[in-house]
């Protein structure tokens, strides 16, 4: 049941995507390419590039992956799955957030997450141009030979 698989996979990504989509890119690539095999590594980069070139939120890469895996229903399911759980969480937290404005725990959590997001986004950039993926990194550097 590939639609269910898409829903669960992207639903989990939704809840760990602190810092937005760039931060969860390494995990998405790992799941989609290495664990599920929905796309090859070069295909993943190409879908990423298409989502990047089209106007709109960069989260739409998941629709292209869903489409590749299961056609149009896959595209819709993947998008709803990656937005849904986070949307429900936002819905609940929006008011709480205000109420805990001065709580030391809120401040600590906010400070703790900032460096993690930086490390994860760096990983995203790195994963998108490493040896298992297309060779533009090596191609863009003039070779000595």
């Amino acid at each position, binding site marked *: 049941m590939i639609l269910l698989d898409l829903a669960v996979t992207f639903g989990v990504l939704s*809840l760990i995507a602190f810092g937005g989509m760039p931060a969860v890119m390494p995990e998405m690539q790992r799941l989609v390419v290495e664990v599920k095999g929905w796309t090859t590594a070069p295909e993943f980069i190409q879908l990423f590039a298409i989502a990047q070139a089209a*106007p709109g939120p960069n989260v739409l890469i998941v629709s292209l992956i869903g489409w590749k895996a299961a056609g149009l229903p896959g595209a819709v399911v993947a998008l709803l799955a990656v937005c849904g759980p986070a*949307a429900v969480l936002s819905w609940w937290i929006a008011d709480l957030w205000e109420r805990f404005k001065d709580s030391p725990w809120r401040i600590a959590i906010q400070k703790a997450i900032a*460096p993690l997001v930086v490390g994860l986004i760096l990983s995203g950039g790195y994963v998108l141009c490493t040896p298992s993926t*297309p060779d533009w990194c090596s191609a863009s550097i003039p070779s000595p030979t």
Partner: protein
Amino acid sequence: MDVTPPRNLSELFMGFLAIGARSFGGVMPWAHRTMVEERRWLTPADFAETIGLCQFLPGPNIGNASIVLGKRWFGVSGSIVAFLGLMALPFIWVMALGALYLEWASDPVVRAVVTGVGATGAGLFMGTALKLGRAIVRRPAALVLVASCFLAVGVGRYSMLIVLPVSAAIGVFFARRGWL
């Protein structure tokens, strides 16, 4: 500054449709332009605070913003309408572009262009990380967290499901000791 929130659901829908429709090269600048400058739904400070919250929450930032703002103005139906308005046109466009690409994928020039766009995107990630990193770079504890996250997830390819809880716990510990 006088703000006038959207009066009904169709105004809300059209506003978010306008954001999604034009958002070449990132949604946030267009969200600001549409909601703060053109339609005056929000003050700049209010916008910044809402986006700040959505950046902290997991998930696509602008998607979360549509939920939070929709809720504020019209409850559940507001959230749904804002989200659908935001995603409707970009969804169609990305699928159309995907279909077009599939048609032309065998052309080496097209492949080269797409690969170039992908490389640009990867570079943008690095730029974003550096920009965000500037604010925390003076704290050695923060650099340790950045580096370990990068090594574990980027180089080691460990699952974020393991790395995130562990590093978040360490981060909160650091923060409580005043190291971050």
